[in-house]
């Protein structure tokens, strides 16, 4: 890590700004990553529309999470792939700001653009449902939504380290996207999954965050047995673990790039 504290925030800010400008120049990529969650949301909505507003909210939250995750995963993989394709990885690595800060800015941007998909899902469902969805504690719900975004960013950061390491980001994206949909509980309740999947589910910060969101948003919700407090601690713990893991992996990946001399490969 840099000994000069100024590099971290400046790097994240620069990366966010460049992501925004690149997005404005090329905004169509938002469409494919938002289509899948809308389809999932509508399918869930049709399945649960007769079961009352709580199940509708359950489905909407899951679909929104899927949207943010899809955007995080694809956006981060795409941005790193673009760095290789454009030949900008080398000039970025030779700058004093550690690359992890650049990636962190991109991941945050991608989670934010994923929110657009989430809002889209909400809009579509509200339009189809025809009435406001119930929320017991709006402020806490909002705070937890930010926590969910943070947890997705932590996982995204770790995945991006793999994208920097290898040129085969498409493979990781495909495996990462759909397995997340299922094991995070975004699509189905975790309890419906086979027992052996539980450790994988609980290793994902988003599993805890989504469950916490449902506890706050859905009256009478019965999710993971340790309740809201357990979910909050789980979200925080696993997110920090992913963050620490990402920092370590990034150090290794940067060293490997310099050792192998593959930063200019694409």
């Amino acid at each position, binding site marked *: 890590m840099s000994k000069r504290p*100024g590099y971290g925030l400046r790097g994240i800010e620069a990366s966010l*700004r460049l992501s925004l400008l690149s997005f404005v120049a090329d905004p169509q990529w938002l469409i494919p990553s938002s289509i899948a969650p809308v389809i999932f949301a509508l399918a869930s909505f049709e399945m649960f529309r007769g079961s009352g507003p709580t199940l509708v909210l359950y489905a909407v939250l899951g679909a929104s999470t899927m949207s943010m995750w899809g955007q995080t995963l694809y956006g981060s993989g795409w941005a790193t792939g673009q760095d290789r394709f*454009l030949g*900008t990885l*080398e*000039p970025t690595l030779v700058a*004093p700001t550690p690359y992890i800060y650049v990636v962190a800015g991109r991941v945050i941007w991608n989670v934010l653009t994923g929110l657009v998909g989430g809002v889209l899902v909400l809009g579509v469902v509200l339009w189809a449902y025809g009435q406001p969805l119930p929320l017991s504690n709006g402020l806490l719900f909002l705070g937890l939504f930010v926590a969910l975004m943070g947890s997705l960013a932590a996982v995204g950061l770790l995945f991006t380290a793999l994208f920097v390491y290898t040129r085969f980001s498409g493979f990781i994206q495909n495996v990462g996207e759909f397995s997340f949909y299922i094991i995070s509980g975004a699509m189905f309740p975790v309890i419906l999954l086979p027992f052996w999947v539980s450790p994988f589910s609980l290793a994902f910060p988003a599993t805890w965050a989504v469950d916490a969101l449902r506890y706050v948003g859905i009256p009478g919700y019965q999710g993971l047995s340790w309740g809201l407090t357990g979910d909050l601690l789980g979200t925080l713990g696993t997110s920090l673990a992913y963050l620490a893991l990402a920092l370590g992996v990034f150090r290794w990946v940067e060293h490997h790039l*310099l050792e192998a001399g593959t930063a200019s490969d694409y």
Partner: protein
Amino acid sequence: MLPSSSDVIEVTKLTRSFSSRKGFLFQEKVATDALRGVDLTVHSGELFGLLGPNGAGKTTLTKILSTLLLPTSGTARVLGRDVSREGAAIRPLIGLVLGGERGLYNRVSGRENLRYFADLYGLPSGSVTSRIREVLDLVGLTEAADRRVEEYSRGMKQKLHLARGLLHRPPLLFLDEPTIGLDPRSARELRKLVRTLSSEGVSIFLTTHYMFEAEELCHRIGILAHGQMVACDTPSGLQRLVGGEGTVELESREFDDVELSRLRSLPGVSRVLQEPLGTHLRVTLRVRPGQWDPDALRGALDPHPDLFVRERRTTLEDAYLDLVEQEVAA
């Protein structure tokens, strides 16, 4: 900040190997030695040129010195710091300009590209705008600053690369083939800029394919061939390496091996090099003044109706070709 030593680059016995895999099912590891024991020193304020044929190891050496690649063995110190262990301390002090079309964010403007890298280099926030304006002005891109980079010509992209390398006022600048692919006017402008930077005290490490560029710009030139530094001297010193010899060029549709052998055995002829020249062949002889006989030279050849003979001064390019040729032969 800078070391007290007058040397900005100190390289000792530097090697770098790359490994790749050969085969499909039963893969075999193949190692390629890109650098084989390079020794080199670049002084503060010097404009040092690195010449060498394709694959000689120029880019590998530049990447190691600019902390983008780790050496396999040996040491390399840049501005007094070890590239293997102190890369993070070296990066704010150097500028790297890689040649070519790549290395820029095409969808955003030139100014935004610079803004991004100004932040990554930690330029004081209050001076970012004015410094970007300065470097854009310096490279002549002020008018095109707000156009997307994808609309830039190759020459403009090259200027933007240079502007990025200068943003943080580095005392040492690495230029990797900065004029490659540029039209003559753009190349001349860029060379002028490099001269100006050098006169302002910036130490410059330049790699190039062009002899005249190295001869015109550089205080000293190193010649790299097959991963080894085969010579390092001033341009005139390198020319002296060929011993003040003259050069005679012979051109014809063909020369056979017997003729070439006879030419080699002539008194006063030290080297005979041949190269294709379109539909013809050019044979270049390095001759010792006063010791070679033009009549004996013509006598060594069979009758050639299209023979063209020219005597000229030995240039840096000749010295370069001789040195590279010797390395290949060795």
